[in-house]
């Protein structure tokens, strides 16, 4: 019999979490409740003597100062004192990761000195006590906002029902599986039509009521299935289900990046031709100055920080899972990308997390969308997605002790069907351990295969193939997982101890495809592997062997451990509370062999497994879109226009996001994500000190311009690279030591037009990486970000994300005491613009704002900002020099929203006013109108302030470059701007600017 322990805030005390929930319900649903109180329920699924249970109730679960607790049912008497009209209980569905449940189990073991066995465990759930006169329909609506039916279930009772039934409890979420599925051998000698169905829908398990039961998509094209069929025909046998699933994982778009590897038109692979070639050419040219260490071969890209230390950086996406369960998707994403630098070379310590979110409009009118025609499976409101994703990254970063240092949030209605969630992690690794370079690793024949960390369940089965397919009603919910930062923190800490004691010869992380991919990859280092699946620790019995092999259960790393070190390695992990098991050996047989209960279930040639997939041949088409340049009237009130721009969700303050991310942990934050006298203006880049006793810093930024892609993706990519480089230069990074990462989030990648856009984007990546001598060191693609579903009337609808390229960049700051923020420093300082302002507003924020106001949708226009390397390449090194020389008091890149936004941010940060004359701004032809000068997004510009005593030297050093002094910093807290015709067009107090900047997300 399971025992329930309930914990609530004492009746006399306010419940602040409940109050926050009450406010959120009022804001999001417009339902005013009198009170919300929240209770935690711990359901202990194991027999204990009464005295032990009473001790747990008293000592372990409640905070004795603020909380009261109750043991088992009946609960009504206990809950009466809390006061409520309705009660809602939310609990997990079977098999969903229950982190507090796991902690409770460990705590009970510590307190009572015993061990839980088998499936004995603790489950957690949550009760909401709602006060207020509501009918059931409204309460059901409130309840629906409190849980996600993909991972949780709920029960609702009125007070009367609750008392009549003597309490409320949900069924126990025990996992109960039918007897494990038998191993099938799969016949591939089928007609093409049947074969294609196998690829799309998965292996046929049997039939029920005349309907076929299939295991879920393999996402294998017919070409691929033919290659597999031919291979097994040569071997003279049929593949097992495990072999087929394993090959499908290894060959998935997600793992092999088949589109970037494909032959596209006459391009011999986009990756090879544009991305990798750029890096190779840059490295060759840089010669001895080359700071790349390990590029494109490992889980993260590695560059040199100094003689003794390297940096490893990786940025991933976790879009599809975040669409389904924003919290689970995002936390799994961030904790997952942590494992990339952890599994790069011999492993690194994790020093900074980064993020980037792209959501639908969280504020405007919402038109419901559904995944199914029956409208039972709604798409989550962008606001819900935003809050869930934010919370996932909060918990993932904060609980891991990694500062979440840099990020951005971007909105576009086209992200409403599928959000983009970028997550990145920077790691720090010693250049050598025991005299050997740490970026090198290699499993050796005879090394044990050790898997450590979390246990294996059905989680994420078909995860890798799933994200290679478009999202539809049949998407398996096994793709939803919840990351467990504490299990991984223990694992990561223990790994670093083992690394420094040289206890393993290779390591890699388990991501998509689970151990099938990690072991398969490591086996290439020595030429083979032999795995005994029986040895893999499981969460619950009943998993089929193929499920154990491809499960994506989180928080696991795979190690190659020399046999003589295995004891010490396993003992170390056990003493750190980390579960580990040796599950086989690396070999040099040339084959990947998997056994289960003495039977061989896989025996495949390694070369075929990795290189047997046929190369895809793709065709692209590029048609330049035509959007008319809007003919805009000048705004009547420039002050109002500037305020409206500052309040746009894309440009407004998202301080509440940054404040809930711990960006200071590890003590290395130097230029912070929020800057200014009042610490309330977003910085375009941050600087961290990875080594506490060194003056070297690392500057981090990210940039994307999906709006420019609507006009020409070439300039979308160019602008993103230019902006990223400029952001880093402005905070003091050395322009010769900047590295780039690409993240392509595309849509409908089967369509030649989309591939045409992709090709242009890649061409710009090549061109501009070379211009700036900034190598790509790592990247990732996610090619099918399309939503196919139904609108409120049940009509089919497809929403594709705009092709999106995120450029993340890191740069070395040689002396971080020379780094700089955008904050204006002192009244009397002179304000300069560097670089030309042209009439380039196409795809930018100003056209979007005007269009939304006048037509209800963004104007796109044609005048996309272009990057002119002949100008920027002269300017940036000079800017970097004068920052180093201390000639600049503050610097800011001019970016989205243009000069007007940059001026406003500088004024808000410094809490000092400015007097500006737009007539002085250096400009291109046709740009001489006040709104163009204020809001054009021309690339290549900086806004700086200079101490008047240094201005002569500054101007001398900048000779020959397009720049102008456009005004002065003033004591009076007002931004005053004089237009080209000599009239004052703007005069706004700083507090008004801040109000506009902050009001959009004020109560979030």
């Amino acid at each position, binding site marked *: 019999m399971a025992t329930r322990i309930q914990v609530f805030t004492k009746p006399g005390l306010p419940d602040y*979490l409940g109050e926050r929930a009450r406010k959120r319900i009022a804001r999001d649903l417009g339902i005013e409740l009198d009170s919300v109180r929240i209770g935690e329920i711990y359901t202990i699924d194991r027999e204990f003597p009464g005295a032990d249970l009473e001790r747990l109730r008293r000592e372990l679960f409640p905070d004795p100062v*603020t909380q009261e607790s109750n043991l088992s049912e009946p609960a009504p008497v206990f809950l009466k004192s809390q006061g409520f009209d309705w009660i809602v209980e939310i609990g997990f569905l079977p098999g969903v990761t229950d982190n507090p449940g796991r902690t409770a189990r460990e705590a009970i073991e510590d307190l009572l000195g015993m061990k839980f066995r088998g499936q004995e465990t603790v489950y957690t759930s949550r009760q909401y006590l709602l006060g207020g006169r509501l009918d059931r329909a409204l309460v059901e609506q409130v309840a629906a906002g409190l849980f996600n039916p993909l991972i949780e279930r709920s029960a609702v009772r009125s007070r009367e029902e609750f008392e009549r039934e003597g309490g409320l409890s949900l069924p126990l979420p025990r996992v109960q599986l039918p007897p494990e599925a038998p191993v099938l051998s799969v016949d591939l000698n089928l007609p093409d039509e049947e074969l294609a169905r196998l690829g799309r829908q998965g292996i046929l398990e049997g039939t029920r009521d005349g309907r076929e039961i299939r295991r879920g998509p393999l996402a294998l094209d017919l070409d691929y299935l033919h290659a597999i069929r031919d291979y097994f025909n040569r071997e003279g046998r049929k593949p097992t289900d495990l072999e087929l699933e394993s090959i499908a994982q290894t060959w998935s778009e997600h793992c092999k990046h088949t589109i970037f590897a494909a032959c596209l038109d006459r391009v011999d692979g986009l990756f090879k031709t544009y991305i990798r070639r750029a890096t190779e050419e840059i490295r060759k040219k840089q010669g001895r100055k080359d700071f790349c260490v390990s590029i494109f071969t490992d889980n993260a890209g590695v560059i040199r920080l100094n003689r003794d230390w390297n940096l490893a950086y990786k940025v991933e996406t976790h879009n599809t899972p975040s669409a389904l369960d924003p919290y689970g998707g995002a936390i799994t994403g961030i904790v997952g990308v942590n494992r990339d630098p952890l599994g790069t070379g011999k492993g690194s310590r994790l020093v900074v997390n980064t993020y980037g979110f792209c959501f639908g409009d969280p504020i405007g009118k919402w038109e419901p969308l559904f995944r199914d025609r029956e409208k039972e499976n709604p798409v989550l409101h962008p606001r819900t997605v935003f809050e869930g994703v934010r919370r996932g990254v909060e918990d993932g970063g904060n609980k891991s002790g990694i500062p979440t240092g840099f990020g951005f949030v971007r909105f576009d209605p086209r992200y409403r069907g599928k959000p983009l969630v970028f997550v990145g992690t920077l790691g720090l690794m010693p250049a050598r351990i025991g005299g050997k370079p740490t970026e090198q690793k290699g499993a050796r024949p005879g090394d044990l295969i050790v898997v450590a960390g979390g246990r294996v369940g059905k989680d994420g089965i078909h995860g890798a193939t799933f994200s290679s397919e478009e999202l539809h009603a049949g998407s398996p919910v096994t793709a939803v997982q919840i990351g467990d930062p504490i299990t991984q923190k223990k694992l990561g800490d223990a790994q670093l101890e083992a690394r420094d004691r040289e206890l393993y010869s290779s390591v890699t992380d388990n991501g998509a495809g689970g151990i099938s991919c990690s072991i398969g990859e490591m086996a290439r280092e020595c030429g083979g592997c032999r795995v005994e699946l029986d040895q893999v620790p499981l969460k619950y019995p009943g998993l089929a062997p193929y499920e154990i092999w491809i499960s994506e259960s989180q928080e696991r790393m795979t190690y190659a451990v020399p046999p003589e070190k295995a004891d010490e390695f396993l003992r170390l992990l056990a003493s750190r509370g980390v579960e580990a098991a040796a599950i086989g050996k690396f070999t040099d047989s040339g084959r990947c062999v998997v056994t289960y209960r003495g039977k061989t279930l896989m025996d495949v040639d390694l070369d075929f497994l990795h290189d047997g997939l046929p190369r895809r041949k793709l065709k692209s088409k590029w048609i330049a879109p035509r959007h008319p340049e809007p003919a805009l009237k000048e705004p009547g009130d420039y002050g109002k226009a500037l305020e409206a721009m500052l309040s746009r969700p894309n440009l407004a303050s998202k301080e509440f996001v940054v404040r809930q991310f711990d960006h200071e942990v*590890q003590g290395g934050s130097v230029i912070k994500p929020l800057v200014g006298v009042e610490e309330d203006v977003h910085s375009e880049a941050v600087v961290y000190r990875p080594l506490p006793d060194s003056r070297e810093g690392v500057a981090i930024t990210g940039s994307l311009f999906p709006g420019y892609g609507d006009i020409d993706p070439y300039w979308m990519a160019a602008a993103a690279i230019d902006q990223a480089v400029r952001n880093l230069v402005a905070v003091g990074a050395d322009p010769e030591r900047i590295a780039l990462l690409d993240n392509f989030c595309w849509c409908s990648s089967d369509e030649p037009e989309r591939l045409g856009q992709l090709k242009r984007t890649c061409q710009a990546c090549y061109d501009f990486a070379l211009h700036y001598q900034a190598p790509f060191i790592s990247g990732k693609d996610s090619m099918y970000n399309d939503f196919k579903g139904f609108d409120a009337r049940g009509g089919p609808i497809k929403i594709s994300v705009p092709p999106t390229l995120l450029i993340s960049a890191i740069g070395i700051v040689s002396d971080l005491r020379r780094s700089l923020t955008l904050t204006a420093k002192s009244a009397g300082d002179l304000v300069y613009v560097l670089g030309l302002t042209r009439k380039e507003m196409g795809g930018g924020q100003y056209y979007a704002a005007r269009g939304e106001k006048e037509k209800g949708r963004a104007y796109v226009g044609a005048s996309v900002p272009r990057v002119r390397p002949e100008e920027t390449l002269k300017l940036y090194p000079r800017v970097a020099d004068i920052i180093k020389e201390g000639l600049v008091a503050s610097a800011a890149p001019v970016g989205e929203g243009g000069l007007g936004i940059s001026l406003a941010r500088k004024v808000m940060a410094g809490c000092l006013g400015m007097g500006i004359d737009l007539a002085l701004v250096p400009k291109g032809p046709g740009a001489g109108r006040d709104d163009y000068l204020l809001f054009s997004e021309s690339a290549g510009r900086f806004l700086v302030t200079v101490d008047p005593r240094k201005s002569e030297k500054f101007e001398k050093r900048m000779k020959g470059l397009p720049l102008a002094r456009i005004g002065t910093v003033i004591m009076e807290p007002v931004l005053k701007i004089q237009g080209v015709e000599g009239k004052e067009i703007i005069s706004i107090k700083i507090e008004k600017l801040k109000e506009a900047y902050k009001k959009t997300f004020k109560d979030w």
Partner: protein
Amino acid sequence: MSAKPKALILTGYGINCDWETEFAFNQAGAQAERVHINDLIAGQRKLSDYQILAVPGGFSYGDDLGSGKVLANKIRAGLRDEILGFVSGDRLVIGICNGFQVLVKSGLLPRPTPELNQTVTLTFNLSGKYEDRWVWLSARSDKCVFTTGIERIYLPIAHGEGRFFAQEKEIAGLKKNDQIAFQYVDSRGKPARGNFPENPNGSVLDIAGICDPTGRIFGMMPHPERFLNFTSHPNWEREKELLSRQGKKLPEEGDGFRIFQNAVQYFR
């Protein structure tokens, strides 16, 4: 000069400020060492070999069951005699953020009793949200070893459960015994009086840190180990620019360093 005092920096199970806390103590002149709690429980390391115990910040057990609670439970179950022996001698204990929560929930603060019972608490911020921001603190206790010579300092907080709360009787006892070590104040040093954001979490009496009646056991929510070098200050480069115009140099040390120096100084 006597030998360097030895500082044990506790680690394991989601403690995550152990590296920077170790660095802080070493910089201040201690001989600091990160030790996994399981090595203490297994007896491989002995608490009695050290003069200073630091329980760093972090997210032990992910704050499940309440912040600091499960690590406190582990200490009470596995290290009760060792820890009681340690604090009965002339030694120092500091708990920062999650470490403060652990000290409170394991009953070491406000005063250790043989049963290690919890009598005060750190609970959810009034906002219901996690907060990362810099705050001003005023040192209030004459007996707290760690705050000697400190008046007002600026440090970052980063927590979701930092609201100090206790029954009135307990609070009166803390006041009477001079155990309130730090209170949140505004930038001019005036009491925050519970106002956000000066008091970032709604702590009763603006309490940010307390010590035991001997002044040797100390806990605080803000993070002194995150402000050792002046370049960690949110506006350091503004200060630098303004100072340089007066012909002055930027200070080297941050406000938090003094707390670690005080601990080391105690054994000199």
